[in-house]
């Protein structure tokens, strides 16, 4: 069953006098509980695809459905609410807010929604990520891997339907990268978390169930349909 469906997505950027087709008629659907990796060269459109799928950017044409809700037509407030409740994000640069502790960073989405977090679940996540001892630390006091793990806890704390990760291991060493990927896999298996991850590393992408390969804004291969991605 597909949790996210995108149809005929097009996104064009204007760079001076040249038009760049970041997305060129992409259609894709993400199944519930799947772990999908999007790979491609620099400028192939993978981050744009992630942004459009998550509703951070609006496509020039095409539609994106998260469950029954069409993201492309949503107003700002509804989109924001949707992101709060159903979508989680993890970025290469972590983007934790420096003046707040790990604990406070995790709770920000709940505060925005004015609801109480599921403390047991947050505790479980923090312990799973080996961050429980560091919950009162400020981001500046943590290592890169710890910051990324904190960002993952923040993304998962509100039990999102889908987790988007944009090169989550890009700033991490091998050991930390391995831990993060193992975590994604564990989440997928244990709680059926849907994960969409963008990476340019095929070895990392191979940890996913499905690999979508992009080139010049088009899907050139999809392991759901083929067995191997030729990168």
């Amino acid at each position, binding site marked *: 069953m597909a949790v996210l469906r995108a149809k005929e997505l097009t996104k064009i950027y204007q760079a001076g006098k040249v038009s760049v087709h970041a997305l060129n008629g992409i259609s894709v659907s993400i199944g519930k509980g799947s772990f999908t990796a999007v790979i491609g060269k620099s400028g192939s459109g993978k981050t744009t695809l992630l942004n459009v799928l998550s509703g951070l950017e609006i496509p020039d044409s095409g539609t994106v459905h998260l469950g029954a809700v069409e993201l492309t037509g949503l107003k*700002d*407030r509804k989109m924001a609410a949707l*992101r*709060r409740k159903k979508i989680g*994000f993890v970025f290469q640069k972590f*983007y934790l807010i420096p003046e707040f502790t790990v604990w406070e960073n995790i709770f920000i989405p709940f505060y*925005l929604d004015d609801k109480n977090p599921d403390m047991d679940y947050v505790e479980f996540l923090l312990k799973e990520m080996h961050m429980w001892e560091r919950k009162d630390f400020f981001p500046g006091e943590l290592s890169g891997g710890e910051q990324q793990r904190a960002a993952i806890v923040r993304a998962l704390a509100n039990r999102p339907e889908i987790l988007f990760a944009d090169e989550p291991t890009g700033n991490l060493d091998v050991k930390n990268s391995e831990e993060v990927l193992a975590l994604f896999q564990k989440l997928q298996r244990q709680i059926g978390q849907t994960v969409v991850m963008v990476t340019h590393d095929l070895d990392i992408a191979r940890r996913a169930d499905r690999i979508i390969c992009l080139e010049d804004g088009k899907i050139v291969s999809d392991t759901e349909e083929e067995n191997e991605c030729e990168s």
Partner: protein
Amino acid sequence: MNANLRRLTRKGLLRRKKSSLAMLAVCTLSFFFVLSILILQSSLTETELRQRERAYGAWEAAVFTDDAQTEKAVVQQPMVERSGKIEVRATYPIGNMEGNGTIGAMDSQAAEIGKLELAEGHLPKRRNEIAVEMSTLTKMGYDYTLGQKISVCLNYQDPISKEEKSEQRVFILSGILKDYSMYWMEGRYDWPTAFAKGEDLPKEQKERILLVDISEKYYGAVTDLEAFCKDGTIYNENTYYELSGKEQKVSILEDTNVLLAVLCAASALIILQIFSATLRRREVGYRMLRVIGADKRQLQEMILWEGGIFWGISFLTGSILGVAGTYFLVWGIRERLHFEIVFAAEPGQIFIGILSVSVSIWLAIGCSVMRMQRGKRPENISEQKRLSMIRKRQHRFRKKEVWSREHALHPYLWTFSVVSTFLCVCMIYSVTAVVKNRADSYGYQWTPDYIGRGILPEHMLREEIPTRMKAVQGVKEVNTLQKAYPISLTWEEMEETQYVKLHRNLRGQEGQRLETQVLGVERGEKLFQKYAKEQAKKTLKEEAFWNGEEILIYLPVILTDREGNAVDRWEEPFPLFYQEHRETKIREGDTLTLTGAGGEKSVRVGGIIREFQARDAYVAEAFSEYTVIAAGKLVQELNGMGKEKTYSYVEGFVDRYGDTHLTDREMSVIMKEVEKEFPKAGTITNERIRREQLRKDLFASMFGAVFLLVVIVILSWLIQWQMARAKAAGIGKKVGILKALGIPKRRLCRVYWKETMKIQLGAILSVIPCGVLLQSFLYWKRLEGLAWGDGWQPPQDLYGWMEQIIFPTMQRTAWGWLALIFLGYLLVVVYISYRPYWKEIHRGVIENLREE
């Protein structure tokens, strides 16, 4: 916004200590400065009002009526706090030539609020008692012995037959009222000059005068009263209500209003700068919040809540500090400088001040939010292009690249920086000029301390006042101007002068001679030595002067408005357009003819004193048009031999501790000692009674100007500091790249040091000639106005311009002050402008490059 978000925002503020403190400091300072200025203004106003009330009484209006019903209605008016009644019952002749005075009765309220004080004795309590005003008593030929019999011829209208009747009455002098002329302009405030019990006077009232103390100090109250009593109302020109009594003189260009506007605008600018900078620094955080589900409204609310916290805290601290700080400042001025000032905080004004600052703060916060939401403007040169340009030059770094607007800073920021620096320096220059001007005016009025004859009754002036006054401890020196009168003045070219025609026209004199006064001075007196001789030292032959062959003549400038009416120099409001007229026909060496009771004397003009040269106002006040200053001997001759010495002006320089600047308190102690020596003269006050008000105004004005200067310098520093921070933030990445490419830090420092100096020093060096040129232009316009009918020609060539306009202007410019202020300003501003660059350059390369 929910409580959790509010708490989170608050925590964020606490953890961003530096930017929060900067923001809080600026907001607090804004409240502090604005409230201080307003409280100081109301304190000075209140002080002045109290002084005036003390000298001139508490009444604001006097209603003249002969109708008991009107009187009753006035008293019942809600704006009338209290009233005193004076009844005028009859007139009586004063001496042979002095005209008539009025006699009446008054209640105790009238004596109290009308400041009709007794110098000696008491108001009439029993039948046949009378209290007479001091100068009137002298004019009637009586001395000041209480209990003596005073014979008065009362003239009144018979109530039945309506015929004019006269009745000779004898009263017993129970009290002597202080000299009215000390306080009230003759002919305007005609109170009775003698008071008796009502039963002793004719029953028919000529007039009732109601002295009214209006409780509410707003101009509408006077207008209401005037509407109510259509006829016969005069206003006390010395109280809250102005002479016209009809409108409040409020100008948006008043010092305080201008200062407030400058303060609010500068505060808004600085707050905008700081808040925008903090928001810019947190842009990534806000983007992240958007990603994790914050909508625009929630972000706006969070930022506004932050602004609200800043506003709330600064409002509290700024208001408390403003009120407390000003209280202690006023206390310090009163206790340490011994300057009489009361603390008064006007709630309405404080509210307006708080409102203005609040509006500025919220405007700045609102603009910052809008700027943040609008997003970053694209720079016109991309980082890549810059790098490629550097590479093309084989990694050679040239200072030109940094100095060039395109490379050094964002073009808007560069322009903004240059313009703001120029404006700051302009403001400092102009306010320094204002401070100099105000300080000159203030000094002009202040020193030396002296006591004068204004309080002495006429007959005392015939005694040996100088000798006796000198005997008082504390009085260092006594100066006199002896009086010769009446004196006619003629000279050969007299009829030709435009000035004489004008003088006659304005003063209403006719005939072939010009009536003037001759004032005699004695050898060695300071008045002559310091002021008169100084002004004419080039031409005056001193021995000839003391022999009565040469004189000094005072030629004032007559001011006329556009209709040709004379304008008083101290008139308020002073007309915008006026002409100054000078006498130019009298020159040194001319022969004048003076004709007095003692005969005719031909004298040579030894020196001319121009009004604008007479630096001390009190000397100028003793002079009038064509006043002749001559040796005492000449005055004696003009008055006729054998006549006793009379004085037009007696003053004692008070100099207890060797300097001539005494506090009011010390002055008052000495005044009391003088008073003790002259018991018959009543309370001796000095001639500063009227001048006190002017002095307060001048003090307030100078104080305001100094305060304005301090505020503007501090604001300029703050603006420059913020500007420097913004500029330094913009160079971080580039500096990192340049350091990575091998450019030494020292070289970068040198380049940015030069950039800082060029902007700051350039602004100062360009503002000074601009300022001199502007002042020269104003001086030229003034000369042009001055030259009407005087044959003055504007300069014809560059040399003439330099000689007549530019150099005199430069001579009058306060170079010392300017140098001192600009040096102080420059030292601080260069440090605060360069320091952020220095910090940025000395950060690690990686830190520079990591910058978002």
